[in-house]
């Protein structure tokens, strides 16, 4: 297991984090680091605490015990949110009739900037178009978000999350309900963001088989942290064998 000491490369440090909903334990004493340049998959069966862990790191939930730090600062003190991008779980909660254009959705990402960093209208337009170009959606600028397919919507949400050129991008099961071909294109985009734009990516998924060509690290959760390390070693590890033996759906095969 990699060293858990904080170093210059550590972007996120999770220390002994536990979380419960009432009396139900969801996370138990989870400790690990996320380093610059990681393309990390957080995997585990349903109910293993993956989404809860991401929400704790982003300050959306408070842990019952332990703490998370982003760039050396406690999450509740962290204020440089323009450095963090977030694509929430497949937006079934997004109202398809909401009267908002693709341009307006991507512009929402700019609101995490501090007042002193606000851009002129011309600059705003330019960065929005650049973000949409990165995800291949530049032709849909003035289309209503509800008129797009699920895969297209998720690409717009990625554009929103990267419009500030963040250091880190969190995605929570971003391709649920999306067809296989669209999924491949989607992960190619993430690959480019990680390798060319040098964005650290943290991806919550329960299907490692789809992302195994892209990721370099794995964190395997089942309320506790069962494994955290290099992807190649994970497939040889006891954690992986135990998950398969437990009948958990971890791998899917592409045909």
């Amino acid at each position, binding site marked *: 297991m990699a060293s858990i000491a904080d170093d210059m490369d550590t972007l996120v440090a999770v220390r002994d984090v536990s979380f419960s909903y009432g009396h139900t334990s969801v996370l138990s004493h989870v400790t690990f680091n996320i380093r610059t340049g990681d393309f990390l998959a957080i995997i585990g069966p349903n109910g293993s605490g993956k989404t809860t862990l991401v929400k704790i790191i982003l300050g959306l939930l408070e842990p019952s015990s332990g703490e998370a730090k982003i760039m050396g600062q406690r999450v509740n003190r962290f*204020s440089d949110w323009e450095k963090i991008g*977030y694509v*929430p779980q497949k937006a079934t909660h997004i109202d398809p009739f909401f*009267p908002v254009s693709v341009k307006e959705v991507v512009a929402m990402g700019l609101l*995490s900037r501090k007042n002193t960093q606000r851009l002129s209208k011309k600059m705003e337009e330019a960065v929005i178009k650049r973000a949409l170009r990165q995800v291949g959606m530049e032709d849909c600028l003035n289309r209503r978000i509800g008129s797009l397919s699920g895969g297209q919507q998720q690409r717009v949400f990625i554009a*929103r999350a990267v419009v500030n050129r963040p250091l880190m991008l969190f995605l929570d099961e971003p391709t649920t309900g999306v067809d296989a071909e669209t999924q491949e294109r989607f992960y190619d985009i993430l690959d480019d963001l990680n390798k060319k734009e040098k964005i650290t990516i943290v991806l919550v998924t329960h299907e490692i088989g789809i992302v195994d060509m892209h990721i370099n690290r794995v964190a395997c959760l089942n309320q506790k942290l069962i494994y955290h390390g290099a992807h190649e070693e994970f497939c040889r590890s006891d954690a992986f064998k135990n998950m398969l033996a437990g009948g958990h759906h971890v791998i899917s095969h592409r045909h």
Partner: protein
Amino acid sequence: MDAFLSFGFLQRALLAGVFVAIACALLGVFLILRRDAMIGHGLAHIAFAGVAIGLFLKVMPLASALVIAVITALGIMKLKEKAGLYGDTAIAIFSSAGFALGLLLVTLAQSFNVDLFGYLFGEILAIDPTEVWLSIALAVSVVTIVIVNYKKFMYMTFDRESAKASGIKVNRLDILVTTLTAVTVVLGMKIVGLLLVAALVVIPAAAGLQLASNFRQSIVLSSIVAVVSVVLGLVGAFYLDFPASGTIVLLSFLIFGLFFALKRKRRAF
């Protein structure tokens, strides 16, 4: 039209009406999209308790209505958070209790007279200069605050979780929206009365949302519908001797119907 505008009371009515209409429309768009459209109805009933308290204590009813409406609106918000009460349940409970309290106090104050009638059905044509300037000042404040924060309001209405993850203080903005809604409902009470103020908040916004293809358009269209309804409603009421509040609301309903039909026609093509 010159005759219409030469009367001071009509000028005051137009001035107050236009500003309050814009405030109602702007907030109405957010309330509809937050699925909180009925809060206007509930707050109007609560404001009635505030009016009654004002009449009972012989203080300015508009002021007492503002205080009661804002405090209760924030209380409803807290109840939803802490006690897990559904929003519409909390509104139903408080609006009923508010109206009942209002009835009791009005009876005790023996104020079943023109004062009360004006608050129930609106008395924009009888609005006095002090109330005009107060209404305009409050309405301009509401409009300014909404315009300054409209992108954050839009973000948290569209995707609350992502807005929170961006560092936007969604809980504080909720308090702001709730307070602005309470203020706007009380202002609208003078224009169309307690019984119809919810319509002024909801119908122009719903009309604008029929044809808007982006958020900015929905805000602009809704405001235009609200202003047109109030202006034409007042003109119609003056010349046809109709009640101003009913005319304004019916006009906005007709415009909604027209926009709805246009939307369906657009889809068919």
